[in-house]
């Protein structure tokens, strides 16, 4: 598969040729269309992608898929993204906990201090979503 290297850090990897398999990403969002679109976007960026439409599905998928990063919509039909992040952090399943990135069509300021208070690694507005942005989160995460 052709790997596109959309940003500096990605390019660095391409150039050294030591391309590691990109970690799996779990998209948690109840909008099918958006999920499908993001899957395309991220697969194009070289990620393996799994999907979940609800909070319950998300925790279940995290157990089976063991993603490196969870892109977690805050607005979910059952429990909200903050709660899912809390559950994922509380249940590391023995392995390293995934990097959780909260996302929303709203801005971070619409959630006040809740984002900072959550165990998630950070927040990415949906309209700024890109493989590069996710890689930055992965790079920041402790090994």
């Amino acid at each position, binding site marked *: 598969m052709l790997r596109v290297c*959309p940003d500096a850090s990605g390019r660095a990897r391409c150039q050294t040729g030591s391309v590691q398999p990109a970690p799996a990403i779990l998209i948690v969002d109840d909008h099918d269309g*958006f999920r499908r679109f993001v899957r395309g976007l991220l697969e194009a960026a070289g990620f393996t992608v799994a999907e979940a439409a609800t909070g319950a599905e998300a925790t279940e998928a995290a157990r089976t898929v063991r993603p490196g990063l969870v892109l977690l919509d805050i607005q979910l039909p059952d429990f909200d993204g903050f709660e899912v992040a809390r559950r994922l952090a509380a249940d590391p399943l023995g392995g390293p906990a995934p990097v959780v990135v909260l996302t929303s*069509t709203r801005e971070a*300021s*619409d*959630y*006040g201090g809740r984002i900072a208070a959550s165990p998630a690694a950070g927040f990415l507005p*949906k309209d700024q979503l*890109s493989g590069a942005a996710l890689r930055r989160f992965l790079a920041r995460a402790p090994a």
Partner: protein
Amino acid sequence: MSRRLLAVLIAGAIAAAGGLAWSGWPPHSDYLPILICYEVIGSSYLVAGIAAWVRWPSSRLGLLFTIAGYLYLLPYILVNLANPVAFTIGNLGQGIYTAAVAHLGLAWPTGRLRSRFECGVVIAEYVTAVGFSAAAIVFWNPAFSGCDASCPANVLLAGDGSRSAGNAINTIGGFVGLVLTGIVLTLIVRHWRSARGWSRRAMVPLVWLAGAVGIEQIVTGGVLNLPLSSLVSFGLAPLVMLAGPVLFVISTVRARTAGGALGTAIVDLGQGASPARLREALARALGDSTLQLAFGRPDESGYLDTAGRAVDVDRPGPGRVVARIAGSDEAVLVYDEGLALEPQLVKLTAAAASMALEHARLQAEVQAQLEQVRASRTRIVEAGDAERRRLERDLHDGAQQRLVTLSLALGMARDRAAQADPELGSLIESASKEAREALTELRELARGIHPAVLTETGLTGAIQALAERSPVATTITAVPDGRFPAAIEATAYFVVSEALTNVAKHAMAGGAEVTIYQRPGRLVVEVSDDGAGGARPEGGSGLRGLADRVASVGGVLRMDSPPGCGTRLEADLPCP
């Protein structure tokens, strides 16, 4: 009372009083004060009789006063007539009025005697008065009393008479009279002690006056044989007989005073008084502490008074009378039977009670309606808030979501097209920019409709967001943690939002300060700035709408804006 009876009574009174003056004129100089004394006492009973008849047509008190008046005056008129038969009857009848006065005392205040025994006592009074006079007159030679030949003859005189026999009979009669007086006084005191409410108060002056009459009887009754001048024994001492008319005057004044006091009591009662307080006010005004105000139970199982005691309106108990309160078929007054003599006063009391109850009912109704209006206003605002929340959420889930996807897709398309066809790339870039701007505008719109941050984090985050977005440097001094009812949170938020908008637009301020704190049951929101001040509370629809919004949740909005000293807006909101 019929006009004919009234005319007869007035004519009779004038005739009797005039008759005494005419028959006794010209009096011997020593007898002028005595004549005046008789006139005053006799006519006062007749006048009191007429007045009592008018005031209490249903009672026998008018009749009793009138009888006492005639029994007092007629014997003296007869004695003065130069006719032996009249002279004899007149002498026979002197003193019989005391029986009528005793009758009056025992029948007070209703006009009815209370028992057969008391009837017997009254009959004994009349019989004793006439009987001993009749026995003594047989032995009384007018010459014994200093009569000369000009005196008419005693037609009942046996022989030349006997001073000692007459005196003996008079002494025995005096003793019997004293015993009867004692019985009457004892009965009166017992009436007073057993009386309650209105009647008890009516008995008080009687007890005093009866005591005075009793003392007068003992002093001048001849039993003690005190050395009294004729002026004292025949002129001044009998003045105590004015007790009867005085009693009437006192009771009349009392009823008038009570009537006036009722009006004052209702005015003083003020708004929203409970039935118990109404009863107290009426009882105090009337001077009848036993007055009861009773209401029909909702299940129609009888009546309860304001103290919660059951009241049988068909058999209210001895000495008690029931009156229904006009305009209210389930409220009644229960009062002492003595008060029944004053139908006007009872009517007045019932009218006062009816007015007060009606007033209380209307007030409760208005209050209830006001509560309903308040509640519905709050509900309308809450429904509006809920609708705005839903709208914001719909925008977020729908249009915002699609625009985000569109924007991302355009971004991707631009990246792919940029290398192959730069012109197409820049075209897509401008479309992407449009999409991003549309998204930003839509976000602002959604935030204006309802701030998601308020729903998400409550006041803490929402006020923080407002302060950060405000173009004027804004300090948050305090915002309580924790959540409040949605309507209160939304109102507090809109107060701060509107206030900060105004600061930015009009105040020319260097900084603003937001403080939100709790007092027991209240949440107070304060926004102040260091700007130009001089803002008018009525100025601007934003502030008016805000005042309405604050009022809708039962809060108060205050603005303090002295020219040159900044503006301070305070919303005091209820907060359970």
